[in-house]
Structures are given as C-alpha cells and as structure tokens.
C-alpha cells in the first residue's frame, strides 16, 4: 500500500511539473506553446550542468538567473506571430531549434541530479524507503502552486489575469490586456523551466525528450480543461491514480491508459472535466 502511494505521488508530481506552466500560459495568454517541453528540458539541463559545476546553492541561483532571462526572449519571439496557426508553427520551430542547441551545448549524454538527490537519504515509511528528495520536490511544486494561488487570487495583477483569462475583450475595457498576457507568458515559461530543474532530481534529461514531455503535458491539459490550472492539477492526480492502478492490477494497459483517459474526456466532456462552463472562442 505504501509503495502504491509513493508511485501515485511520484507520478502526480511528474505530471504536475510538466503541465502547470503550459496550462497557465494558455489560460491567460492563449499561447499554445509547442516548445513547452523544450523549456522544461532546458531547466533540467541547466540545473544539472550548473549545480554539478558550481555546487548546490550557487548552481541553483545561477540556474534561476539564466532561466529568468529566457522568458523575455520567448516573448519577443512569439510576438512575431500574428495568429494561432503561426504560433503553432513558430513554437514548433522553436522546439526543433532548441533541440539542436541542446545537442550543440550539452551533447548526447544524460543529465540528472538524481545522485545528488539520493545523497539526501531516505525516510523509512512502513518498512519502505521513501527518498527525502521526493518530499523536497513535493515542497517545491507545492510552493509554486501556492505562489500561483496567491498571485491569482490575492493580488491586483492576479485579478487582471483572471479577467483577461475570462474574456480578453471585456477585460480590455479596464486592463491593459497585452501587458497582462506578456507577464503571464513570463511567469509560465519561468515556472516551466524551474519545474524542469526540480524534476532533474528524479529524472534524466537527454536529446529528444522535449517532444515526449509534451504528450504528458497535453494529456493533463486536455483532461483538466485547456488553460485551467486547478483543473490541470486535478487531472494530474486523476491520471496518476489511473496509471498506478493499471500498473498494479493490469500492467498490459499502461501504454494506453493515458490516451484512454484523454479520449474519454474528449467524448464525454470535450471542454475538460473540471471546466465549469465552456468558453466561447
């Protein structure tokens, strides 16, 4: 039972980490970022490279500094596009471009902080080893979610973001919508890359992962409702439960379970399980 819970928890964190940033950007700015996975992977690569070279604290700070410089670049890039179709092309091109850069800069090896994380040791829960790094990663992800919550519901900027998210045209009457959208792109990209860095404590980064990550992110997004970050979080939990149960009881289905969930949601509630009302595009 403990082992099943750990499995659920680890996969839940995983899904949350890959999907939240994307949900946030789509929710507020309506940018469907196909390069999302590349930013996640970039966070992992950078954190591993810098932390192994500079040590944990300076490395983490350097990573955060480099990552903070990224979103403006991305914003400038996305601004060149005029509509959603161009956005898809542009962000997909960016994905390929970034993969090329990863190969150039980081080579073809595996990058991971798992050894460092394993050095933290493990707690014994019910006779099973649960690595402390899992708790730490949980704290980091929860912290980020809390930050999002405080930002969205306790600040004026958050109010604007929710307004823009609900109805861009109406919000434009009192809010500078483009500015709010830019800020949300900044935040979403930064959070994605940061979560990629956190995920380096349990997974390895290598070439080609950017596109793989995208599949999981999309699944969580579609099930939770496009752009709905709380829905995405709930969807992550749901998928994690389903996947853990499948592996425990009928492992043959594992490859399919996530797709079955997505297809079921699209058939039954195309707007996403956790969307209260369908948006009119």
């Amino acid at each position: 039972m403990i082992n099943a819970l750990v499995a659920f928890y680890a996969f839940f964190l995983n899904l949350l980490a890959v999907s939240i940033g994307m949900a946030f950007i789509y929710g507020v700015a309506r940018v469907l970022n196909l390069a999302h996975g590349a930013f996640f992977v970039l966070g992992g690569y950078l954190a591993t490279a810098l932390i192994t070279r500079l040590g944990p604290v300076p490395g983490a700070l350097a990573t955060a500094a480099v990552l903070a410089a990224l979103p403006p670049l991305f914003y400038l890039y996305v601004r060149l596009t005029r509509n959603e179709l161009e956005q898809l092309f542009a962000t997909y091109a960016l994905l390929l471009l970034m993969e090329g850069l990863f190969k150039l800069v980081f080579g073809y090896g595996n990058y991971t902080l798992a050894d460092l994380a394993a050095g933290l040791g493990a707690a014994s829960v019910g006779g099973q080893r649960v690595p402390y790094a899992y708790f730490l990663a949980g704290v980091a992800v929860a912290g980020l979610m809390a930050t999002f919550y405080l930002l969205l519901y306790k600040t004026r900027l958050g109010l604007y973001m929710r307004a823009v998210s609900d109805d861009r045209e109406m919000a434009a009457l009192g809010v500078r919508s483009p500015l709010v959208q830019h800020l949300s792109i900044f935040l979403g990209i930064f959070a994605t890359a940061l979560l990629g860095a956190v995920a380096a404590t349990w997974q390895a980064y290598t070439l080609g992962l950017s596109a793989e990550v995208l599949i999981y992110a999309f699944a969580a997004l579609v099930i939770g409702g496009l752009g709905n970050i709380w829905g995405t979080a709930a969807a992550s939990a749901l998928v994690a439960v389903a996947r853990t149960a499948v592996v425990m009881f009928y492992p043959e289905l594992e490859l399919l379970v996530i797709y079955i969930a997505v297809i079921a949601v699209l058939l039954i509630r195309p707007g996403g399980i956790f969307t209260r009302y369908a948006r009119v595009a």
Partner: protein
Amino acid sequence: MGIAFVAGLGVGAGLTSLMRPQVSQLTPTGTATLETPKYTTVSPARRKEVFKLGVVTFQTGAASIFGIPALNAAQLLVDQINQAGEILGAKVELVVRDESGGPDKMVAVYRELTQQAGVDAYVGLISSADCLAVAPVAEDIGTTLTVFFDCATKQLVDRGMMKKVTFRTGGTTVTDGVALARYVLEVMPDVKTVVGLNQDYAYGRDEWADFKNALLTMKPDVKVLDELFTPLFATDYSAQISKILDLRPDLVHTSLWGPDLVNFIKQATARGLFQQTRVAFARGEFGLYEGMPDDQIVEGPHYHGFPDPKAYYINRDFVEAYISRFGSPPPYPAYHMANAILGVKYAFEVAAAVENVEWPDLSAVVKIFERLAYATPGDYIIMTPNHNAMRGAVVGISKGGKLTALKYMHAAEVNPPVGVLSDQWVKSL
C-alpha cells in the same frame, strides 16, 4: 565448394595481414589490421578514387545516445583506414544521414543514398522497424552492399530477409536473451521468481520473450510473477518499482536503454530496489557509466574491457583512440559500427584478392562476405551464409562502474545454427 576454398584462402590472406610478424616493433599496434593487403594484379585499372560509404544512425532524438557514438566510431575508423592505405586504394568518404523519421523515411533515405548519392556501400540502422522496412527495398534494388550494424530483430534471419546484398554484422534479441539466461543460471542457480520490465514496443517485447523462453526452457520451475511494459521514454518508473518491491522477485529482467535505463537505475536505487532484488540488464553496458549499482548482472553486446585491451591490441588501440578523440570509452554502438565498417572493408579487399581484380564486383563481394571471418576491436566476427553474424555475447557483474566476472558466451551457444528458426532453437536448449 570451390568458392568456399578460395574465400578461405582470401580470409587467410586478410588475417595474415593483421597478424603480420611484428618482430622489429617494440609496441605492436592493432591498427595493423587496417592496412590494405597489397596484391599484384594483371587486370586493367578499374581502381576507384573514392569509396563512398553511406552511414545512417540516429543523430537527433533520444536514440542519438546510440547514434552519435556509432557515428564517432565511423569517423574514427574511416580516418584510420584512409591513413593505412584506404580501401583498395580508394579514399573512404562518409555520407552521413540521420535515422530519425521512421521506416518510410529510411526507405526514402536508402533510395537517395544508393541511387542519387551513389554510395559504394551502405552501413546503418539502429531501429529494428527501420531494418525491416529497408531490407526488402535493398534486396529489390540490389545494387549496393547493405550492412545493418545494430538493429537486433530476429525476423531478419527467421524470415530470410537478407539473401542478396543485405547483411547484418550483429546478433539478435535471441543472442541477448540466451546469453543472459545462461549467465543468470550460472550465478543464480536457485532463481525461483522473475519479473520482466521492458519497453512496450517490438524490441522490448522480443527481448523479454527471448529471455523468458530461454530461461524457462533451461529451468522450467522458474515462475514469472509479472510482465511489465513501459511506454518508450517514460520518465517515471515509480509504479513499476513499487510493484517489484511488493512482489519481491529473485530477479528482474530489463532491456531498457538510453534515458529509460538511467531513469530506472536512479529511481530504483533511491527506493532501495537493488538491495532486495537482483536485476539482469540486457543492454546494461550504458548504465555502467550512469551509476549502475554493484552486483547486478549486466550484458553489453560489447564492453570496452573485453577482449582485454592488454592482450588484444586491436581493442586497446580502438579504446585509446576513441577516448583521446571523444573523451569517453567507446560504448557498444561504437563497436557495432566497427564490426560493420571493417566487414565492408575486408569483404571488398578479400573479394578483389580472390578475383584478382583491382575492384571487385558486387556479386564477388557478397559471396566473400557470406563466408568471411574477421577481427574487429570487440570480437572476431563470423559471417554466415544467412547473411547474419554469429556473434558472441559478453556478460558480467557490475562493480564500481566496471564489469567483473566477465564471461564470453561463444557465438555458437547463443545463436541458432544457420537455417534453424530462433524460437525452435530456443525451445531445444
């Protein structure tokens, strides 16, 4: 009979060149292998200036972890070959293509390389699906010596797909499975329970089926507790690890590779799986550089410590040259590439010698290659009339990122004899 005899002479000549007496040399070098045997010839000069060698491996995506070392080895060897007399006096030029894009694209790339770029030989393909798609096309076109250097599907031999110009200089998933099962039974004669953890696609399923069949044939009382299959490039193995921890099997079999192998090793180490259960890694050689825990059973199709570089100079020189140029020891795809490229070189050279011409035609090269045995950095490769290599396998126990208790399984004990179907043979073990 006649041909076999002449080919044997040719092979002998080739081998003599690499075993040339080195009395005057204080530090004999393995690269003597790469020198072209010189023959006087009476036929008119049809010598080529350039030997175009098409090489196709993954250069992008997650499988580039295999493709890039393989291409590294190709570049290294081609430079060495060109310095040591080229191939029959023709300078070898690489024409490189990326394997990403799937089987249909690989067929298109094959046509492009052979019909437009005009390569003299084609070496390539890591993915089994790509090999299965390209083989019939290569046979159909029939103009170019085609050597698959890595893909491990047994279907190529079982379905007789390599008959004319297509060869593979490596073993199959059967080689992996039987070698691993034999080794497991040697070091764990009392193994009772096993769980499989493999990727959910043709390669992973074949690796598991071949290992399971071999193990159960040789020790029928072993119980398979579960068969787990994970999506390719899953980053999280916590559910599988949990299940294995709950099932407590004596042994886990896995053929994970690339990032999946690394992720599994890291996550399983953190959860203490290796203290409870021993894992047999069919493609674990890569894991040795990625924190492979001690005391696990690891098979590399090749391992840079075997044959012992101290004793076997060809390997010593290859390892040293590879490390000095690329900064790390050659992983097994680099050896696979060497097996293929040296095979091409020797097939052309021996064919020219046997036919006594400056440049052999394809049919002579094919006839020779079917019966060629030649030295490479990682092994002696024995080609067979079914166009597949009889390749041995290296298995050992991991210790401090190295393989100890190395055992080389002879090619004849881990591959079905020519003409016998893989499954039939495994059941007869």
